[in-house]
């Protein structure tokens, strides 16, 4: 594991998904993906994306969907 423990990244992603200041699931997913893209380092993004590709256990649905969009 490098740069950040995955648990910490999962917690951060879930917090962002809960915190993005918009209404509606679709907007929240967009907002979460945009936030992670804007503020996380490439390595952190890579790590959370890899984690999602391995199942992403512990991520909320909004966070998981947002991270999935990062990879696309």
């Amino acid at each position: 594991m490098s740069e950040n423990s995955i648990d910490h990244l999962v917690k951060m992603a879930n917090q962002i998904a809960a915190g993005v200041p918009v209404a509606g699931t679709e907007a929240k997913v967009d907002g979460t993906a945009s936030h992670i893209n804007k503020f996380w380092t490439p390595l952190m993004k890579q790590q959370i994306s890899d984690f999602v590709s391995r199942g992403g256990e512990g991520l909320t649905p909004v966070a998981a969907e947002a991270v999935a969009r990062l990879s696309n």
Partner: protein
Amino acid sequence: MLQYYEPEKDFGTPPSLATETVGLMIDGVAVDVPVGTSVMRAASEVGIKIPKLCATDSLEAFGSCRMCMVEIQGRKGYPASCTTPAEEGMVVNTQTDKVAGLRRNVMELYISDHPLDCLTCPTNGNCELQDTAGEVGLREVRYGYEGNNHLDAEKDQSNPYFTFDPSKCIVCSRCVRACEETQGTFALTIDGRGFESKVSPSQNEDFMASECVSCGACVAACPTATLTENTIINLGQPEHSVITTCAYCGVGCAFKAEMRGNTVVNMTPWKDGKANEGHACVKGRFAFGYATHQDRITSPMIRDSIDDPWQEVSWDEAFGFAADRLRETQQKYGPNSIGGISSSRCTNEEVWLVQKMVRAGFGNNNIDTCARVCHSPTGYGLKTTLGESAGTQSFASVAKSDVIIVMGANPTDAHPVFASRLKKRLREGAKLIVVDPRKIQLVDAPHVKADFHLQVRPGTNVAFINAMAHVIVTEGLEAKAFIAERCETPTYDQWAAFIGDKQQSPEATESITGIPAADVREAARLFATGGNGAIYYGLGVTEHSQGSTTVMGIANLAMLTGNIGREGVGVNPLRGQNNVQGSCDMGSFPHELPGYRHISDGETRGTFERDWNVSLDAEPGLRIPNMFDAAIDGDFKGLYCHGEDIAQSDPNTHHVEAALSSLDCLIVQDLFLNETAKFAHVFLPGSSFLEKDGTFTNAERRISPVRQAMPPQAGLADWEATMGLAKALGVDMHYDHPSEIMDEIARLTPTFTGVSYDRLDELGSIQWPCNEANPDGTPTMHIDEFVRGKGFFAVTEFTPTDERATRKFPLLLTTGRILSQYNVGAQTRRTENNSWHDEDILEIHPHDAEERGIKDGDWGGIQSRVGDTVLRVKVSENVQPGVVYTTFHHPFSGANVVTTDNSDWATNCPEYKVTAVQVSKVVAPSSWQDRQKKFNEQQLELLKGAKRRDETARQPG
């Protein structure tokens, strides 16, 4: 700006703000002045000085000394010119035989009870009584000196910074009025009557035991040597002065550093300083001794390991050693394995260079600033809703406020000079809503009483701010026209549906926030309907897991009520350190270039790339907490820490210490061997604000000059040291003066286009944006439209923090600061300010204390899920049951051993304000405190053994 020392001109009475004028003749000179101007001031405006003692232009006219009497044609008697308003057609004579004789008689009476020790008096050469005696031509005292007098009155030397010598008092009441009008503390009074009248702190106590807050307003107001700074008594009068800006809190007071040679004799608040208008607090006014404290380190030092003694080296050797280590680290661990932290205590120019060195020299965006741990949510929240990461007003704006919310801030302690403005407005009748878990001083201060103290439970700010908005929306109190014209309609409609839901109502949130629903409803109605509504907030808002959300909720509330875009209203973050605003403006965040422009913006990045002749990384870098995590994971190995003590100030000390211990190269630039420096391999001696040129930007976006008053103790100013390191790393960086750095800032930052040192000299200070559209700066933002265009109502859902009271940790710890100490205390602990606060104390409610068998003065063990520490306990009803409180000014307190790495969802600003803890009675320090004591002793021994590197090389074996 070097000036020969000269007291600032005193017009005698304050200016009138009226626009209508009257014309009169004074000594044959025609003068037009605003209605309400005193005759004394009108005379002074045209250069006619009427003798005075009780009058000074920072205080309302009092009319007690009878020295300023004049003759006015057509009027009987000899009115006091200070209390007589100028009137149309008035003909005034300030000097006639009659008034001259009367003035001499009055002065004769004063001097009959005054020591004639002018030659040995500390204010010799700067005494209004002495000057006025000269002006009125006093030549004898016919009454003699043998009668009853006060010449033997005992001095009060209890205050470490000034002496009260009542034998020299003329009972003019300037000190009493300054304490009331300027400071708003009401600590002084005139006790007794007639001959027995005397100045009395509180109820005949000495100054130190009284309610006096040592702001120095009384000392500045005193026209004699009755109240005199001890530095003046010890060193004599200054001979020149330098106008500069205070290096303590985000108010950014302007001062005259009054000097003898290179020695500061006095720090006098500058009357023309727009942030403070001649007022100060105990820190800026008196606590400057740290700059010349014996603990200052004045030679660069290096060492291979933190177990080795330090070696003193030349600047060039230190730069070379540091640069080699950083480059080796990058070669071994990759380009992203190093980073830097800029300081909110340093100048804009220095911060600019640090972020430039990281971006252009380190080749990454691993640059962050200590604003990460205080106001980063302000940047995020205000940018999202209003479009700019800054407060909207000037401090002076509060004079036009009618209803003021103070939320999660303690201005009397943390921003005292602003608090004095605020209290003045409250005394004039403005309403006050305090939102704070603690009973801060503003809740019930002399002549100030909050209309509401909403004692919110820590961690529930969002639920509260939503409830306020809910009431306004559901009761139809919103500013409909403002919203329709100035804000995005679709997002407002979405938000209104969210906020109107019963879940956000005061009744639904009462069990969450602990605030009675009826109080929230009343407070919301008052804010929505009470006239100009202003919101001031501090770290009690930002340092939460939903800090950014609360900031957005505050912006929502301001837009909802139309309280944006004019004087008297607005969203006002009270910044903690002197240059928090500036360090953020200067591109210290890992995702942003200066001027809050995202690093991924190719056009902006290209501008910098061309100017700096480098290629910049388009991806965000590591934030401070990410750096710590990466260090522990082994990927981040080198850090340049510029004027910040992360080992003491950042949360979860165990985690921070583990991270710092993991580094191969830690470079610390600071005034002192602070807690972080004890983990360092390179120490670059810093320069205090008195030793360099530059600018600070305060909480009202005011860029103010910092001017060198003495040479840097270590030979280089901070900007020169950073430049030296950057050059050693191969960065093309050369400036002869910080003004050239400001020119580069202006060239590359649209909000600073019109800023230069010449313009700062011309205007005194400038509030950004300062550009073609606003050539003299921008006191009030968002006047006609928001910076983002239309205002954005953010949907602020409440999410409870993970830090919740549990059976194991049933109390919530919240942290704050007190008046006499500043941040980690590195500066104030090295001054006499320790007389007021020499250790951090845990406040606990009597109910919680009794349950635990804890009494006042006991040692309390505080345990959280990440660590434990021990502090002395004060049982206090200032905190509510279930909440405990402490400060973090002393390193051995270990307050941050207890705080966790829980952080704001948007910015990772730590949740200092909420930590679930248990408190128990103990008799010994914690194991961390024992370890810390030993580590500190070891590091101080290694410092004591510091030798010149060449001497070390000569030693055998």
